[in-house]
């Protein structure tokens, strides 16, 4: 499988990487070079492969236990904050309703 410049632009967008167009050709070459090495995996017979051994049961946390408290105030690391909120550039309001809708920014 090989990657086109549009593929790279699309993937960069998905990952919010802000790659400028001048770098795209080199990235296409690099990624295709790397992906070419992965092709060998297509030929491997994976039938009958046992699933990774399951370790012990997932450890569950008691509802009453406290969190790992912050040792430093949020103001010490927040890039921009006011009245306890983290601030970001104004969002389109529809995204605020209920849970986030995703991919709106």
């Amino acid at each position, binding site marked *: 499988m090989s990657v086109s410049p549009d593929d790279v632009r699309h993937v960069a967008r998905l990952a919010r990487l802000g790659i400028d167009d001048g770098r795209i050709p080199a990235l296409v070459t690099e990624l295709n070079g790397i992906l070419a090495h992965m092709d060998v995996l297509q030929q491997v017979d994976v039938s009958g492969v046992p699933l990774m051994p399951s370790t012990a049961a997932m450890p569950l946390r008691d*509802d009453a236990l*406290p*969190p790992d408290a912050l040792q430093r105030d949020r103001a010490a690391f927040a890039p921009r904050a006011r009245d306890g909120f983290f601030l*970001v550039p104004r969002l389109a309001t529809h995204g605020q309703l209920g849970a986030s809708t*995703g991919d709106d920014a």
Partner: protein
Amino acid sequence: MSTPQPGPGTWELVIGLEVHCQLKTRSKIFCGCATSFGDAPNSNTCPVCLGLPGALPVLNAHAVALATRASLALGCTVHDTSVFARKNYFYPDLPKGYQISQFDRPLATNGGLVVGTAADGTPRLIRVHRVHMEEDAGKSVHDRFADVSAIDLNRAGTPLVEIVSEPDIRTAAEAASYARRLKQILEYADVSDANMEEGSLRVDVNISVRRAGDERLGTKTEIKNLNSFSAIERAVAIEFERQCRVLESGGVIEQHTMLYDDKRNQVRSARSKEGSHDYRYFPEPDLPPLRLDAAWVARQREALPELPPARRARFAAQYGLAEAEIDQLLATQALADRFEAVAAAAGEPRKAANWMLGTVLAAVNAAGVAIDAHPVSVERLGALIRLEASGELSNTAARQLFIMLEQHDGEPVEMARAAGLLQVRDDSALVAWIDAVLAEHPAEAARFLGGERKLQGVLVGLVMKKSGGAADPKKVNQLLGARAG
């Protein structure tokens, strides 16, 4: 509820509901932060729910228990192994840049919820496709500061169950009924406050139309921002009408997310760019698969109280009440519990139902108290109802006594006697009054005894007046009627 009929023209409405419900745990799903509401912004946060570098999720045992109970209450199969997965997207209220959810191996599948009875008497079953666990996102506020949005992550990490129905719903009313009954079940199972207005129950509606008889599904739109059951009904009606109109005129339905505007009663398209999102789901590497043993799941099932469907069936069988009445009594667990206690105390289920749904509910709402905090206790009300049933109190007198009992407590029969509310049913006293009235109104008496039965009502009224309202009108009727021969 009658069998749904296709709408305008020959279009059939097809609806599925996706409901997100916040579980009432003390702490968040993956960290120990409190889930309490209304605290200062970002005051209930820690490295985990802030998504700080190096933080890791650890699953809350109680959230698993509540999610399991919710699944069992909906008749689902709870799987002994389920897997968490990352749903990747960028948004400021999503601290890690992914939501931990469940994807192809959810907690539970294949349940159902009865929303009423079809025309042929069979239950109208809406199938539940799946129930899975996930974390809630934070909140963003857009109007507090100029030019910026303010992010509060207190809600981020609150445990949710997502309950997805099959597209079995066929009317707007059914959609609202499904939501109401779902809320009831979640409340009864004590897993959530399930309050739409407060946001602990969030309902999204997926809606499409197709020609009646067509097996395939049409393109669906999704409606969000529904804050009440009636909003669900209104929004569905609006969107159904719109889709029919579009299709009738030869247009196509585009897959959109829509928002319901309650104030204007409109459904409008959200401004986001369309195209499906690529969430790049993959199994959450920070959480091993969740394994539940059958004995533990059985214990969760035992911990469930009698749920609305079973209670509904029992009420019909045990108390002989009509479906509409049962619906109302089951509106809240508190009301249903109180009703049963009163019915037992009075030995009169039908009368108890009338009293609970009429006088008591009105009084409780007027006083603004919880139903089990109302001053008239189960025992007192039970005694009062027994007095009414035996005929010692007329309905009017009973209601007067009720009001008296609200003011101060006492033995109902004593209070009624002292207030002169007890109806006299003693034959000799009644005969004496009847004789007196007949003597005082000889002309009417003669005509009545001669066969003019229509005078009976007038004479009963006169006897009631003579007795100062104390006579039992039923008995007076009986005795007078016997005189007429």
